């Protein structure tokens, strides 16, 4: 054995190429990139068919082709494919980052214009087309009330539904509920708005309102509930399934009835996860515009009563200001959008941080 090793060592490697495949030198990729850009610039400006953007796009395509060709010659076909796909995957990333960065940048730069105290203390009541001030106080009130009521409706319903699916339900019926909760996640927000319009605004609300249909913040809360329910059921269900069986069995062994086990042992254990799911659902609901537009109507004045008359919401405020002809409207729209995004992001980030501290992590 030793002899073979020593003999192997003493002999110079006869065919290193077969052991170690040839690789493109490190400078090959940048060199090809520069060449591709130069060629593309020559082609584009030579024929006069476009500007710098086209140079970059054409250059990227030429780079991919050139890289594939060079690698194909030196490293072989498989490695060339590998390089090309790797470049494509990286460029997909760059391609997607550009618009998203632009969204964030616009939001911050345009939203900062009207980010003053006045914006958060005034409504749009008596604000004409030539008034530069005006704010979103009424919209913030609306959003908080609508989302709050929707949460009050959805959380008990959703958690109980999840408990049924996980703890009690079995057989076809429970499967059907599970399936339709999944399907319900895909219901468009506008359809939920139309449903509440047809059901609550046009049919039920006339009973309370002298026979005339009435928009209200509560109707918006109902529409948001339809959207929040499946999210909450699904996340609660997942968390309940993660509660270790020995906890339940321990409770049963002590003679605790099942309902009490669920309320006192299972739910508290799963609580952080459930809260996370609820917060994500709230964040989603706060950003919905279409249902609020259909059933709450929007309005310029402050209305703190969610059960009567029109109410606005932050997202609806953005939409209405975006459609407003006043030259001051875009600034208000962007500031409201910034406020809305901040609200949603704070909720989301808090939810995710809470999820990290969750003991029931997988």
């Amino acid at each position: 054995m030793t002899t073979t090793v020593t003999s192997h060592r003493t002999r110079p490697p006869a065919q290193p190429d077969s052991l170690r495949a040839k690789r493109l030198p490190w400078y090959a990729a940048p060199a090809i990139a520069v060449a591709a850009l130069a060629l593309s610039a020559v082609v584009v400006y030579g024929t006069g068919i476009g500007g710098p953007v086209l140079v970059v796009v054409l250059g990227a395509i030429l780079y991919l082709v050139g890289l594939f060709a060079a690698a194909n010659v030196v490293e072989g076909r498989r490695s060339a494919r590998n390089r090309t796909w790797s470049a494509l995957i990286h460029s997909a990333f760059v391609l997607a980052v550009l618009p998203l960065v632009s969204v964030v940048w616009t939001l911050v730069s345009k939203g900062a214009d009207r980010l003053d105290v006045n914006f958060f203390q005034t409504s749009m009541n008596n604000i004409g087309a030539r008034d530069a001030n005006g704010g979103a106080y009424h919209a913030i009130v609306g959003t908080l009330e609508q989302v709050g009521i929707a949460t009050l409706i959805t959380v008990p319903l959703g958690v109980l539904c999840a408990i049924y699916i996980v703890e009690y339900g079995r057989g076809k019926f429970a499967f059907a509920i599970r399936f339709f909760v999944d399907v319900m996640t895909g219901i468009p927000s506008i359809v939920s708005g139309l449903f509440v319009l047809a059901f609550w605004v046009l049919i039920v609300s006339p009973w309370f309102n002298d026979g005339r249909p009435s928009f209200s913040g509560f109707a918006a809360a109902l529409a948001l509930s339809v959207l929040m329910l499946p999210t909450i059921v699904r996340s609660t269900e997942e968390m309940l399934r993660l509660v270790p069986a020995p906890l339940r069995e321990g409770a049963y062994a002590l003679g605790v009835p099942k309902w009490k086990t669920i309320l006192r042992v299972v739910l508290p254990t799963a609580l952080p996860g459930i809260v996370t799911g609820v917060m994500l659902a709230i964040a989603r609901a706060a950003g919905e515009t279409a249902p609020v537009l259909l059933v709450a109507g929007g309005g310029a004045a402050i209305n703190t009563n969610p059960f009567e008359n029109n109410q606005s919401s932050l997202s609806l405020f953005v939409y209405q200001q975006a459609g407003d002809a006043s030259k001051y409207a875009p600034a208000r729209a962007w500031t409201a959008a910034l406020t809305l995004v901040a609200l949603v992001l704070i909720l989301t980030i808090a939810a995710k941080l809470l999820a990290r501290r969750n003991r029931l992590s997988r």
Partner: protein
Amino acid sequence: MGETPHRSADAGTGGTRVTQSHEWPAGASARVAEAPVTTRSPGGTGLGGGGALPRSRKFGAERAFRGLTLAAGTAVLVIIAAIAIFLVAKAVPALRANTENFWSYEGWSPNDTQPKFGIGALAFGTVLSSALALLIAVPVALGIALYLSHYAPRRLGTALGFLVDLLAAVPSVVFGLWGRDVFSSPVRDFSVWLNQHFGWIPLFGGDGPFGASVMLGALVLAIMVLPIITSLSREVFLQTPTANEEAALALGATRWEMLRTAVLPYGRPGIIAAMMLGLGRALGETIALALTLGITFGISFNLIQNGGNTIAANIANAFGEANETGRGALIASGLVLFTITLIVNITARAIIYRRREFTESAA
């Protein structure tokens, strides 16, 4: 961020952990103890040792609680049924009043004394813009997901994944506003360029004005569904068993071959689920399209001229001045949208569920 519990949104992760239990409730092993057993109550008889346990009462808290949860579970089915029933109830009178064919008429004037409205152009616009958006978004989203899960350094991948999740939470009205105020001008330039050089293709024909077009709407939609598809498929890719990946690499596969042979097949159901969810969101998207499309009624494949419309955007735009029949007509169009999304969703879920049972039995 693998520990965030938003896996709820995708059911198709292909993992067996969640799926194993959907036949039996958790804790089923302890079903023996289901009946409320009140051991503390003195059994009465005072038999030494093994006295009979007291019988469960017929209407105890247990039954009440079980009934409550059952009612909550049933509520989901009731809500879905109610959506269909109420939409139909409000749509039928308007459809009766319609003086044109609902399916083929290209136009929307339900508020006239002779109501005329048709869903054809709207449904076409909805499908066209969603399909385009998905066509653009899916390859890019899969690329990002692969980058985040298999190319980027681990910490960077986690941080960027967190960022993508945050972007998925940005409300659609913000994207709509951005699309209208910022993104429309580069798209207009691009449209003019396309028209100049590729005007002979009918897709890019026409003579302006350009900008508020199907292309702008579809691009904004694509940017909106991108984070959703990315975040779901990234999770799926991260769940690929390391053994499979290492086996592929050990057999001499390049990184791309490893992705193609080990990661992508494993994640296929998850990718389909993510696409379907993205499609569902694109079909139902309202405000972003109401802000970016130049509203017209007509069936045209032209992508760059001002125009385009979708069912949802039309509801948002036309709702303000709708009268009784107008509302009914909008509800009828909403019913069509509901049916389309329901079909898409049920198909997606059925694929996922069947696939899941298959993998489960194979495992």
